[in-house]
């Protein structure tokens, strides 16, 4: 009886926030869905009314459409690869007792505090710029031509910048997981004759599985919508080489003033996100329940 009461009370107390979240999510989604079937262009207020599937057709036939989906997936996949592998490596290093541990850890975490447009601008002007950038200077020092990163490898450059921003997050999560690994297990493995590599494969990696899953899931949510870094560096170019779905929607909505078309793009992005989430949960979701 007591637990029954507590449960009912808990439900009642939680209801407002659940309701708020639901409204918060449902209203924009419903509006986007509604707009995606309407003729709604800010440049042409006379044209209104039901548009059928025209907006979807318009977005789908955009020459950048398939490339933008591909680019979205490349950014997500590339950044995940770099941050997970790099995060594990850095976490392993940080787990060792070193001089000035506290300061080193804060330094490692600091990129996460830099706002995305600022980080991207720093990379654009101070690191990757062929004229003023550090990478250009290094190339010249060794007698090579400086590379114009954003013109030659636009997507790769974006991936590097975004990965730099997310690496601290992955490192932090993985480091805490690593620190919770039982010391006696490591010693037992050592006595069982496992060398460093074997200890990593059979002990550390399985122990990290859950943390890696959390990193992948959380980052994917944010990486599907990378936008600021593209805007301030390549602006989606050259051509559509670094345009992802989020950026394409922005382009349609704010440069084309086409609310209907952009909404259709938004719905497509939601569908894409759900497809990605579905495959992700099938691939790594089982690590979460134990």
């Amino acid at each position, binding site marked *: 009886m007591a637990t029954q009461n507590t449960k009912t009370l808990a439900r009642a107390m939680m209801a407002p926030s659940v309701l708020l979240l639901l409204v918060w999510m449902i209203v924009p989604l419903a509006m986007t869905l509604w707009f995606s079937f309407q003729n709604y262009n800010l440049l042409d207020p006379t044209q209104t009314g039901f548009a059928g599937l025209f907006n979807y057709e318009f977005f789908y036939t955009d020459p950048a459409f398939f490339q933008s989906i591909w680019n979205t997936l490349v950014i997500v996949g590339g950044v995940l690869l770099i941050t997970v592998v790099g995060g594990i490596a850095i976490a392993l290093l940080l787990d060792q007792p070193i001089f000035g541990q506290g300061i080193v850890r804060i330094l490692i975490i600091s990129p996460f505090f830099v706002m995305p447009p600022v980080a991207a601008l720093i990379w654009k002007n101070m690191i990757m710029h062929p004229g003023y950038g550090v990478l250009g200077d290094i190339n010249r020092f060794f007698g090579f031509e400086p590379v114009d990163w954003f013109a030659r490898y636009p997507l790769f450059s974006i991936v590097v910048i975004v990965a730099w921003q997310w690496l601290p997050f992955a490192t932090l999560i993985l480091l805490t997981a690593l620190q919770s690994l039982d010391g*006696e*297990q490591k*010693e037992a493995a*050592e*006595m*069982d*004759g496992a060398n460093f590599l074997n200890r990593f494969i*059979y002990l550390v990696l*399985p122990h990290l*599985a859950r943390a890696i899953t959390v990193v992948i899931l959380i980052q994917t949510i944010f990486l599907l919508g990378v936008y600021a870094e593209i805007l301030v560096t390549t602006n989606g170019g050259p051509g559509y080489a670094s345009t992802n779905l989020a950026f394409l929607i922005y382009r349609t909505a704010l440069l084309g003033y086409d609310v209907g078309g952009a909404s259709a793009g938004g719905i497509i992005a939601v569908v894409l996100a759900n497809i990605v989430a579905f495959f992700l949960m099938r691939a790594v979701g089982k690590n979460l329940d134990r």
Partner: protein
Amino acid sequence: MGSITLNKVSKVFGEANVIPSIDLEINNGEFVVFVGPSGCGKSTLLRLIAGLEDVSGGQIMIDGKDVTQAAPAARGLAMVFQSYALYPHMSVRKNIAFPLKMAKMDQSAIDKKVEAAAKVLNLTDYLERKPSQLSGGQRQRVAIGRAIVREPSAFLFDEPLSNLDAALRGTMRLEISDLHNQLKTTMIYVTHDQVEAMTMADKIVVLNRGNIEQVGSPLDLYKNPRNLFVAGFIGSPHMNFVDGAYAQSKNAKMAGIRPEHLGLSKDSGLWTGTVKVAEHLGADTFLHLDVDGIGPVTARAGGEFGAHHGDRVYLTPDESKLHRFDDKGLTIRA
């Protein structure tokens, strides 16, 4: 084979000189128990032997070979940890097979050995389970199984039973003793449990602040403790120490008498005391008394002795079982 020799082994952690210098000889096939108060360096000594900790000085020999600098795996020892240290994401089968897999043994041989070990330890029905699905005693057996399959030259146990309840501890104690009789492999066992030490050991090593106080068989330590520390540490309840006039009458600085060597009577005796607490266990009665002119004393009577709080009783020490100590705390031999 499994004889272990420690030669002036010492260990310093930063400022703390945890083990000043230890010489110890462990013969092949012996069951050796390290006992001592908490923090005296039992675990540290065991870890030095295992190679999990580097020595600060001295030499460790196993079967005549100097292994002071050898890696843990190269020493041919197996360790059972207090927390069991099982690999949580591997099944019991994989846990037991792990050291063999690391030794690159072929799969059919591994299977055979794992099955054999599982049979000895009654784990056959649990081979496909994960450690989290086992009881404490079963986990302990898996940890022992993982140690057995390697056929080590010696087993090291660090308080392996301290996480188990009293009944299970009793069973596992017997199982480990039984295992030792079957395998006849050297075993080093750390504990602070009196009963474990007295019942399992061929040889007890009493440690205090990183020094060996005495080495000997359980009964030897019980009958002939070398000094005050060993006399007070071995035996439960502890020996009663009496100084002052009574000790002087025996030509000693301090006299010691075990609770079981005090004759109890309601009519007459050498000392008179008031019962503070009486513990009636059925098989034994423990009386905690305040003896006139001497102070707190514990006495044990076999069977039931009808005394209660506030009663006056008489005690007579059995002079033939009396221990005498000089002003350095060393035992005075008769």
